[in-house]
């Protein structure tokens, strides 16, 4: 067994070839006990992993404290908490509150803010979700050497449990309804597309959890999810194109803000909330479906 120094030298000389061992390991057909066997020379690996553990912990704690100190010094220089004369209470915030309802039609100024004044950010944000959804799909759907590993998911069939089934049957519509309520009232009360979509997704997730993945995949196929995302994002981008284009070219816009406080008001905010809600709901649901499956 080589000692530690020796190992380091051998390693630097490129004589210790972990990767070849690992690659060999992967190309073998998966045997029953394969994951349990050591992949590399265990004593060497143990030393390499444990090496500098103490220094590592010290470094972590020290840098944590240093960073905290640094940031706290800045906080000591910030304006006092809750003061109404802070620099953030300026004409920007004032217009959002005082003119917001008049200009966007939304009673909830936060909704008006994110979907009308700063709509470009929110467009970007929906596309962050979309990007993550694509990336996760790419990661989890990677074809080729797919190895099916059975998980313990089949041990408990929640559908057979009368209590769970009955309660879920009652609860899922209520959750869905609550999600839709939050979604549609985004411009009137707290909530909006993001929270409403997440709540709707949670109802779908409960359904998939209890009724099983196959039935859920049959009820809401992956293709439908894709098409909903396509339509919602397409609508979002197109409608915002219209409003950005008219806004920046100083053209009149045909969208009226309606009477503030009504459910059908606030111009584009309600449909945008709905499309954001669908995007969020579909993204979260497909995250769940990708994460629950046992194959990689």
């Amino acid at each position, binding site marked *: 067994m080589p000692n530690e120094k020796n190992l380091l030298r051998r390693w630097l000389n490129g004589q210790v070839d972990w990767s070849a061992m690992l690659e060999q390991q992967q190309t073998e057909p*998966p045997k*029953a*006990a394969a*994951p*349990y*066997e*050591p*992949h590399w020379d*265990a*004593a060497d*690996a*143990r030393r390499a*992993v444990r090496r500098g553990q103490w220094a590592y912990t010290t470094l972590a704690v020290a840098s944590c404290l240093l960073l905290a100190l640094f940031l706290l010094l800045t906080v000591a220089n910030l304006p006092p908490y809750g003061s109404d004369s802070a620099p953030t209470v300026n004409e920007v915030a004032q217009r959002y509150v005082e003119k917001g309802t008049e200009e966007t039609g939304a009673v*909830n100024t*936060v*909704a008006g803010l994110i979907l009308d004044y700063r709509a470009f950010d929110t467009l970007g944000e929906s596309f962050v979700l979309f990007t993550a959804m694509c990336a996760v799909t790419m990661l989890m759907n990677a074809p080729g050497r797919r190895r099916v*590993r*059975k*998980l*313990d*998911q089949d041990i408990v069939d929640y559908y057979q449990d009368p209590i769970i089934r009955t309660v879920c049957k009652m609860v899922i519509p209520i959750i869905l309804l609550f999600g839709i309520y*939050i979604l549609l009232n985004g411009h009137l009360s*707290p*909530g*909006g597309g*993001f*929270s409403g979509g*997440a*709540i709707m*997704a*949670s109802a779908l*997730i409960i359904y998939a959890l209890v009724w099983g993945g196959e039935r859920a995949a049959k009820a809401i196929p992956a293709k439908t999810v894709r098409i909903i995302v396509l339509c919602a994002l397409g609508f979002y981008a197109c409608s915002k194109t219209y409003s950005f284009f008219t806004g920046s070219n100083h053209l009149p816009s045909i969208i009226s803000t309606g009477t503030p406080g009504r459910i059908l008001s606030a111009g584009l905010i309600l449909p945008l909330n709905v499309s954001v809600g669908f995007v969020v709901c579909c993204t*979260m649901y497909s*995250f*769940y479906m990708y*994460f*629950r499956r*046992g194959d990689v």
Partner: protein
Amino acid sequence: MIMTIFRLILLVGLIVCAAATALAKKPMQAVIIYMAFSVIMSVVWIMLESPDLAITEAAVGAGITSLLLFLTLRRLNLIDQDEAHRRHEEILKKKAPTAEQKEEADHAQ
């Protein structure tokens, strides 16, 4: 005054939860403490007069993120016993798997 004390308790709770997550030995513990963290966070949003954020945090942070973390744990078969730790130790110790573990592995495959 009472509200300030309540707020202080919540904030201390946040710090304690964050520190506990950092110090937790097993991923399972860390995930559960993180859930508690998110729930406290959503109450803090209420205290900060931001109900939008409270709803979103409760649905997204405490709900979806924690669910994804749990699903990851299940995908890695780490729910019941902390297998990552055990497997890792095993690899390091180069201990031949016992008959019991072999059986378990067969089962897992």
